């Protein structure tokens, strides 16, 4: 029982990341009809927003304190981040909370990146075949990740979670089990909550605002909406920006779980595509459901008990599920009938 709960929890936070990336991917496909292989790179860019902010905040002033000596007899160097000298305690708090604070940086940055990307490149590929869309965005993804690599180096850069949530929670205790059986890092819980909120916000935005209504109408029948005198292209540009923001925020919050490096986007992209396909191309609910489902499946497959029966299953389970879904039900779990069913 306790192992069971633990695996579900483990799967949920990974599933949250998959769901957030897949949500943007499928949103872009549903609205613009574009297969965006650079979406993983947006996730990676978000993560590096967090890295940048953390680096900026911890720029330090080095002063020497002659009253204290190090073991080598030289004056002790005292490093104080500039922000602490300027803002005092608030500065210290800011540094501690650099990851969540980065979201404030990531939102405008990713919005601009998304809009520029759509206006500058993707726009010209609406009418082109999917193969060319895949190829050009694949090229863009390589460019983005190489640029990041040249700025930040090839090694992963660990990002600390705020101290208050750095530890682990004893979930088992809450559920009336023995202490220490189900231990779960607080930050993953935060991530889970965060992804649930973001997913809820995106759905609410599409469901309850006029803007969202127009976008949904455009997804269903772009031409008619255009004929009604609505500038659907502009809305879709904003939708692309929104998808970029969602991917970016997912990246920011994931940094304490996985130290960001330049190719994390590619690693997630392949999986997210599989998630989108399993959920159904263009289906938002499907992407979210499939994201969590595959995350949980993967964490169950990596249990030792399972691995002894089926060695290596943890490596391929997601792909196996995708193959099975594509063969049995090609429109995905919740895909609309007739959308990309060939």
């Amino acid at each position: 029982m306790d192992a069971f709960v633990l695996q579900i929890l483990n799967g949920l936070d990974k599933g949250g990341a998959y769901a957030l990336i897949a949500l943007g991917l499928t949103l872009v496909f549903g609205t613009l009809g574009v297969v965006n292989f650079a979406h993983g790179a947006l996730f990676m860019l978000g993560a590096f927003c967090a890295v940048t902010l953390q680096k900026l905040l911890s720029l330090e002033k080095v002063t020497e304190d002659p009253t204290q000596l190090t073991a080598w007899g030289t004056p002790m160097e005292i490093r104080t981040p500039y922000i602490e000298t300027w803002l005092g305690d608030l500065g210290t708090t800011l540094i501690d909370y650099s990851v969540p604070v980065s979201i404030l940086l990531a939102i405008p940055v990713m919005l601009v990146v998304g809009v520029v990307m759509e206006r500058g490149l993707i726009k010209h590929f609406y009418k082109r075949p999917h193969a060319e869309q895949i190829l050009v965005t694949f090229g863009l993804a390589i460019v983005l990740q190489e640029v990041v690599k040249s700025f930040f180096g090839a090694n992963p850069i660990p990002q600390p979670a705020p101290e208050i949530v750095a530890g682990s929670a004893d979930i088992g205790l809450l559920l009336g089990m023995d202490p220490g059986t189900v231990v779960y890092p607080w930050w993953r819980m935060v991530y889970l909550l965060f992804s649930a909120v973001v997913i809820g916000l995106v759905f609410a935005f599409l469901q309850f605002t006029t803007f969202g209504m127009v976008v949904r109408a455009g997804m269903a029948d772009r031409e008619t909406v255009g004929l009604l005198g609505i500038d659907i292209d502009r809305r879709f540009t904003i939708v692309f920006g929104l998808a970029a923001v969602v991917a970016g925020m997912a990246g920011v919050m994931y940094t304490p779980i996985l130290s960001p490096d330049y190719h994390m986007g590619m690693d997630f992209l392949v999986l997210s595509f599989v998630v989108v396909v399993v959920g159904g191309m263009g289906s938002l609910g499907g992407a979210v459901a499939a994201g969590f489902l595959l995350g949980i499946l993967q964490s169950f497959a990596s249990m030792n008990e399972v691995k002894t029966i089926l060695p290596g299953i943890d490596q391929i389970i997601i792909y196996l599920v995708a193959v099975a879904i594509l063969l049995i039900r090609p429109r995905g779990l919740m895909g609309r009938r007739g959308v990309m069913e060939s």
Partner: protein
Amino acid sequence: MIEKHSRRGDLLLLLGFALVVAFAPTIFEPIGGGYPDLLQKFAIYGIFAVGFNILFGLTGYLSFGHAAFLGVGSYTAVWSFKLLTMNVLPALVLATVMGGLFALFIGFIALRRSGIYFSILTLAFAQMSYNLAYSVLTPITNGETGLQLTHGDPRVLDALFGVQHGDGLPSTDLFGMSMSGWSGYYFCGVVLFAMFYVSLRIFRSPFGMMLRAVKSNQNRMNYTGINTRPYTLAAFVISGMYAGLAGGLMAVTDPLAGAERMQWTASGEVVLMTILGGTGTLLGPVLGAGVIKYFENIFSAFNEATLMDVFSFLPETLQHGAVAITGLFVGEGWHLTLGALFMLIVIFLPGGLMEGVNRIKALFRGGLRRGEVRRPATMTG
């Protein structure tokens, strides 16, 4: 979209190709490519891309998992070196057959879908192979270290025929002819020529015509009562065999096989080669493979010192600036150039270099038929 071609034109093309392969050392000498290792790479990746083109160029099915067959070919060849003999022939035959079998299995499943779903299915299978090669299949693939030759290998055929290897690790040979240096290149070159010939025959055959028909309108084919699956599967298996052969040749030049050859970025590379050269054209893929491998070799060898040399004619401040900017694109940053190239080609020249060549030709023919540029192929998603 029926291209006009004559027997004589084909013969000339083959002759020209053979001449280029034969005199490659002299031809590539002036641009710094006249050494066997690099030319061998041209030939091997040329084979890989020619095979990929038979699938993608003719049928329009975009596979994102062809590196898996390449990896399978490499592993098979190295195992043949370990267990059977250091002679390359059995290794290559086995590598080709294994690549084909593997493609038969994956193609049988993946070809049930088309378009982007086909791409994702092939990608999924390639990732599965890659992950498995790294983890559970370690007894076969030797995991992260990669599969290597050792002293204790049985090599039963060599033992049977009394072939003696020296004290060091044995090297690959073709009935006593060493496979390193120029003989190695010419072996790869001959194989490339043979494979190019096969691809030419496929392009000109009714089978090739059928594949083109699949690309231009598969629905119509189905409505006329033709089952296209056997044709596409055949094309998939053939291109898998090409990839297996290329993988085998890689093991011939360097008897070592690692899982990274199966990674999906490697699959992306062959797609790029084909597109860069010209999808659906005969020469395009070889051209694309050559260009990419050439620039990879040249660009990744650049470092700051050579760049300083190149820009030494500029005043010092400008020189540092120029070095800093171009430094992003060369050496370690070669992939950046590759990605940018990828985008530029897809955006401006979707028909690849061959389209560029045709445009220039049309320009020279001048006035009469201005603007009438034949795009060699259109891609379908």
